[in-house]
């Protein structure tokens, strides 16, 4: 399907935006002033990403009398999903494909949208302080996503160095300037290598994303005839999300272009010299031990470097004083999407500590589920946190591996109420019917576009 037809529905949103202003009167006045009223049914949503926009719409669909306000620090929505195809230069994929205004869905569904950054949360007073006024709530929903942990991963780097590397080697796991910078660097590059460094450890946003990006950048080098390699400095020894499927495609399509190194530890980046230094270990055990004597040290030149640091949860969760796991993800009240600490605070999307994959698809799923739980709570009813579980396909995720022709691989996750007391996802990487025995197929390539188009309709229609 052509991208064109999906792209254009955005234009309708732009037109609507011109006619509408956010309906919450925001002020920058003193701290005591509150911009909205607690009606007994006032829900405040922090974060206008995949989780936040879905739950705002869903709550309004369930009950028009719920008063919903979304607070989002960005002025333009930009999607991370599908952004790798933009980096890969796939036909018809532009910035328009990935972006949208926030006004159209707010107007259509009747929730308030406020562009502001949340700076403090007082759960006792039930107020949220932002750069654009203070707000009160009966129920607070947090969908703030992730943050980067440069400090934890590179403790010896100064603040200045971190800022320098973050700009020179953009991570592009949070949409915005990072993606644009990476795209610009790829467009401007000469012959030479692109280095991609996936997060070294821990839970991170969209487990297949660094490897999809590897495929898409390799596609770009190949299509543009750029003499160079995509060098992946990984820690997972090939055992990553959809690992077998990615590696099959790399072997078939990008032999000699993708150079995957599975047991590395990045120790330094010098953006002034375009150099990255890493230790290369022989296997998983020696990498785990991390004895530099056992490793070979390499310093290599790059044209473009995409350094993706370890992820932690967005600081908004700690700001609310919620109990978290060591990486900052909110501890949950059993199988619910409510925080363990406060029954009036729900957490959805990447910020949960449930064992479900941090994906946009999952964020939407958690948002819809939480909306039902919130509706029940506001009505003074109880709900069954295990309702509908197990879900055979809670998550489906496609990764584009080739641009010409477009081909993708896929994974599905069953969501279950695990005996460890959390929601857990069990993955399955199928070979598609039309793949001739391979993991990738043209049909899944089309499905990748269709998936994304559908998700945009979910958020913006």
């Amino acid at each position, binding site marked *: *399907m*052509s991208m*064109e*037809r*999906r*792209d*254009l*529905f955005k234009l*309708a949103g732009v037109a609507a935006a011109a006619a509408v202003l956010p309906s919450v009167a925001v002020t920058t006045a003193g701290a005591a002033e509150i911009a909205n009223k607690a009606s007994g049914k006032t829900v405040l949503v922090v974060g206008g990403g995949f989780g936040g926009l879905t739950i705002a719409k869903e709550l309004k*669909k369930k009950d028009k009398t719920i008063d919903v306000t979304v607070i989002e620090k960005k002025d333009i929505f930009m999607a991370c999903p599908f952004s790798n195809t933009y980096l890969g230069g796939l036909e018809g994929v532009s910035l328009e494909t990935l972006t949208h205004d926030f006004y159209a869905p707010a107007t259509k569904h009747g929730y308030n949208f406020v562009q502001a950054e949340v700076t403090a949360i007082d759960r006792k007073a039930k107020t949220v302080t932002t750069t654009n006024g203070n707000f009160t709530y009966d129920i607070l929903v947090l969908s703030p996503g992730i943050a980067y942990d440069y400090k934890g991963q590179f403790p010896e780097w100064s603040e200045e160095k971190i800022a320098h590397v973050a700009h020179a080697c953009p991570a592009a796991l949070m949409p915005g300037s990072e993606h644009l910078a990476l795209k610009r660097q790829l467009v401007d590059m000469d012959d030479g290598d692109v280095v991609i460094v996936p997060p070294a450890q821990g839970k991170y946003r969209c487990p297949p994303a660094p490897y999809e990006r590897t495929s898409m950048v390799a596609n770009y080098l190949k299509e543009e005839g750029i003499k160079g390699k995509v060098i992946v400095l990984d820690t997972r020894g090939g055992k990553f999300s959809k690992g077998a499927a990615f590696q099959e495609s790399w072997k078939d399509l990008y032999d000699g272009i993708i150079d995957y190194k599975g047991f590395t530890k990045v120790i330094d980046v010098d953006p002034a010299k375009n150099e990255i230094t890493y230790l290369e270990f022989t296997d998983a055990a020696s990498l785990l031990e991390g004895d530099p004597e056992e490793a070979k040290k390499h310093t290599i030149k790059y044209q473009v470097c995409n350094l993706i640091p370890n992820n932690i949860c967005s600081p908004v969760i700690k700001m609310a004083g919620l109990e978290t796991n060591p990486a900052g993800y909110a501890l949950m009240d059993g199988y619910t999407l409510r925080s363990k600490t406060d029954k009036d605070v729900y957490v959805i999307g990447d910020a949960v500590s449930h064992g479900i994959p941090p994906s946009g*698809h999952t964020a*939407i*799923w958690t948002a*819809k589920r939480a909306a039902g739980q919130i509706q029940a709570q506001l009505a003074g009813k109880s709900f069954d946190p295990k309702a509908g579980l197990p879900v*055979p*396909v809670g998550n*489906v995720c496609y990764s584009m591996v080739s641009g010409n022709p477009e081909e993708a691989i*896929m994974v*599905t996750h*069953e969501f279950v109420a695990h005996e460890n007391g959390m929601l857990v996802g069990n993955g*399955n990487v*199928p070979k*598609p*019917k*039309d793949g001739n025995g391979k993991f990738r197929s043209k*049909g*899944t390539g*089309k*499905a990748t576009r*269709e*998936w994304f*188009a*559908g*998700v945009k*309709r*979910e958020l913006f*229609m």
Partner: protein
Amino acid sequence: MERRSFLKMTGASAAAVVISPSLITQRLYAEDGLSLYESYEKVHLKDADGNPLKASTLQPEVNYVFNFPHIATPCILVDLGRPANTNVKLKADDGTEYLFKGGVGKNGSIVAYSAICPHQLTHPTPDDSFFQYLERKGKTLALPNANEAGVFVCSSHLSAFDPVNGGKAIAGPATEGLTQIVLEIDENDELWAVGALGANRFHDYMDAFKPEFKKYYENKRKAKRLVKDEAKVVALKHFTKEIIQY
């Protein structure tokens, strides 16, 4: 609101004219409070040569496409090869209940549904189709643990719908069921589409796919018009270049 008053009107004319079978259908739904039933001017289903389509010529478990009620809204007609259930109670997302009365044909096995996925509007196009009925012996990732399929599957996000039970959503992210296209069969074994039952997303669909309408139907206004008098029915495999199903 609009719908209700329209139906009141048709109710009134039904009292005056008793012969037309579609008016009987409408009355049938009227007795049920007409919940979520929208009637349209009835449309005669024709085969590729323009002859009336005979119900008995449908091959079992094969997808047939026709457009109804709008020029650009695709529907899928299937002879399920087994009777659909009758009087199945269903619920729309907003809580409205409605009643699926069953299929038509000798065995009550012929049903039609709008082919616009109620989840996020994926639908068959002349280029490709991610949404279709999957025969009973087929396999789908949407129902990994099921022994047999016999369901509509949307492979965009892997939702499944049960055509025997009014198109109820049974798997995946879709919560609302399919919109049933209410059919009638006349004494010559010919099929007519007369209405749509259940919540429908025709409006959202019209908003979402303007560029597509331009490509396939010249423009949006044309795409939005109601189908008049007759609709051509073609096998899905002739309607679309590629059928994609997981």
